[in-house]
């Protein structure tokens, strides 16, 4: 039972993690440390800081995110991430898709809760 649930949560988290990163960058560009610290606090996401960097790298290789280095007076050089044009488009499509999925899921959830 627990194994099944663990597997399922991994699949769900995996599906939404990249979307979370894209949405976190939607408003403005953010530097890596700050972005990671924000995402690890998202309830239920259950992600370690170390896990986020490979995901950011993959998104950058796919052309959805761009990165630039900037010298900082307060510490080491900071790497700023921002959404690319393609990244913004795919984020929008993914959000729309998730919204549709959520609506459908909620309808079923309400039935399920009634008989739980």
């Amino acid at each position: 039972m627990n194994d099944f649930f663990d597997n399922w949560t991994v699949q769900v988290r995996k599906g939404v993690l990249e979307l979370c990163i894209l949405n976190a960058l939607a408003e403005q560009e953010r530097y890596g440390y700050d972005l990671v610290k924000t995402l690890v606090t998202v309830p239920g996401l259950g992600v370690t800081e170390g896990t986020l960097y490979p995901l950011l790298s993959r998104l950058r290789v796919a052309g959805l995110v761009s990165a630039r280095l900037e010298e900082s007076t307060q510490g080491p050089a900071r790497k700023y991430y921002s959404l690319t044009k393609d990244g913004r488009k795919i984020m929008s499509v993914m959000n729309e898709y998730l919204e549709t999925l959520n609506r459908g899921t909620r309808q079923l959830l309400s039935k399920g809760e009634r008989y739980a």
Partner: protein
Amino acid sequence: MPDWTQPAREEVRRYFARVRASLAESDADPDEVVGDLDRHIAEEIAAARLAVVTEEDARRILARIGPLDSQLCAEPRRPTPVENNRRQPKPKPWHVSLVLFGIVLPVITLAFEYFTGMCAALLFDPLPTLWHVLLVATVPFANFLVWRAVRNESTEAQTRFGWVNGFAFGIGLVYVLLFLPLTPFAIPGLIVYGIGLLPLAPLLSLIATLNLRYRLRGARGAGLRLPGLWSGAGLAWLVLLALALPSIVGEIGLRKASSSDAGTRMKGIRWLRALGSEDVLLRACYGRPKRVENIYSFGEPVTPEAARTIYYLVTGCAFNTVPPPKLYAGRGRWRVLEEEFTWDNDQAGDAVAGRVKGLSLASSRQDASVDADAAIGYLEWTLEFKNVSSLQREARAQIALPPGAVVSRLTLWIDGEEREAAFAGRSQVRTAYQEVVQHRRDPVLVTTCGPDRVLLQCYPVPANGGVMKCRVGVTTPLVLTQAEEAFLRGPFFLERNFTLPEDFRHSLWIESRGSLQAQGNRLSSERGKDNRFALRGRVADLELAGPESVVRVSRSGESRQAWVNDSRSAEPQIIRQRIVEAEAKLSGRVVIVVDGTRGMDQFYPAIAEALSKLPDGLELAVLLAADGFESICAAQKGDATLYSRVADRLRKIKAKGGHDNVPALLRAWELAAENRSGVLVWIHGPQPVLLDTAEELRQRLERRGGHPLLCEIQTQAGPNRVAEKLDGLDSVMATPRLGNLSDDLARLFNSWRGKSLQLVRERSGGDLPATTLGGKQTSLHLARLWARDEVLRLSAARKFNQAMQLAERYQLVTALSGAVVLETKAQYERAGLKPAEPASVPAVPEPQTWILILIGLAVFAPNLPRRRPRAD
């Protein structure tokens, strides 16, 4: 910056190594991730305000960062090959059709067109260069790559495949538009004959390309755009445009250059000189009217005649001096189409025109005999033509004769037998030739085509490796430079419609009783029959026209007279030749016209050097014939300073394109005619195209009666259309080329001062006793040379009938007469011609009179030509 302990460093290094290992199968960049983590650690240290980082600190920070969650980071697991094979679905129908129409059909179509040239032969050339072949080949290749990615459901490098597909789309779209007019015909062709698939190949493969793109996009995921369609297509169009640029520039230039407006025409010529492609121009020279020769042609094509003129104006050389363009790889069954393309439109005409495919010179020998004391030579040039094409061909060549020489024999081999020519009026022999050519029989024709030049025509050189052999006999005076020294130079090709194999050599054999010396190292000494001196050797075609083939003949300075009993004359007469020393008249004004055609640059230093040999006190004017004419030096008294200044100016001229020299000659004639002893010197390269009429120039030279004299000197072998129009005029003199240009010009300039040797030929009654005739008795060639002079004199006096009869009687090819060999007696009778008796023709060496009588007696009956059995 905090200090790190060694164990702390080791701890972090081990962590990074684990990260790298766990990312080995991931799409993430391990270096980038390690760099990011490094920065993250530095931020943590800075936030904790650590001065020294110990192993414990490192462990604490790394624990906070946590391990990489491989379940979240890793890509979905790919199936193993075994699983893959197990799950491999059967090929779907769309897979088969995409492979068929997107890959197989384009490859077959491309290969078919490349190897057969069918479309190029019938309509237009879709693959004008190898680059086009490669570009078209990218379509099936790109389709294959994308098809494979789609089949494997690969999500890797999709952006790259998007571009590749876009590139194929760009190329495909252009070819679909090109073949669009054929589509309505291709569909019924497909139904009826099954061959319509080839013209439809671009359309079908374009559909396949777009279908593959749709499927590639589907594999990428819903909502995700596949980049590269228009960017790839744009790149393809840019490449096509780059390949097309020379053709487009050439087409624009051609149309401008063939405009009826002189200004536009000149702009077009300059445009082509600066930017045009010679290949495009050459294609237009061989083009078929109303047929598009390549995919970038537009509008009405420029006619081949106009294109040939433009080609000369742009390049400075005739279109037929370079190999014909390789239009397409016509092979196999389509070879006939290729030959139709190179059909010889100038057959039996009076122009040499373009090189004919498959026709070449198989062998060439020149046998000469020199009578040094009489300063006369006789030379026979035997030529054998070979034709490897599948059509009968006519071999045509313009031949330069030695100065003052005349063609006195013409022989054709028919079925291994020698047949001699009939000599008659020019139009009569040409009509007879054309009549026989129409019936595809064996004639050979020689007519003059300018001062010291003749046109040789042989037909038919049989197809499929057949050969045709003929011989031209030339009687020539030697060029006397001193009483003890004379020069013999043989005939050579000025223009030809057949090719010469790369290693082709002419075989030369020259004999004399006096000693002979070769100018170059190509000829070596040999001992001839009867202890005669001889020179023999093999020379290349260019060398035949150069100083390498000029032979220096030693002679006795005492031999000043020669005579012959003229057996050709109706009345008994003796022809005498005297060598006289004439006091040269200093020319009052010399007007030099220098050709500005490309290729003349190399001769400007030699001309400049020769200018220093001009005598002081002479009035000099120099014109450059370039797009009209340009004055290099206005008429003025010359001295060393002026000559040096003009020489400097000449050396700096950069010759471009080809130019009509006639406007400069007309202006030069006016300048020379202002002075009572003016001379016009025309230094020029080949003039392969007559750009405008030379009639006005001829009129002036003809009507003024020998003054001013036009001395022309040609720098390189090649045709001279202007000189052709000045045939038969005694005021036009070709300067003999014996060595380099500077020396030959200096010899000409020197002839205007001091004394010069001249050969004077005259006749007297046949009743003079031999003892009263000074000098040596020589051969009948002396009588032939006298007759040649006489024909010129009678022509100048407009006594054309008398001149023509004289030429016929002495069997000479002159401006009024020609020589033709026909195949049968009936053909001769129909044309009203009589072939020369074998006993009456010259030979090497010339036989004595008594031998001729013996030969005449030995001939049982007139050697009437027998009809040659023919398969057709």
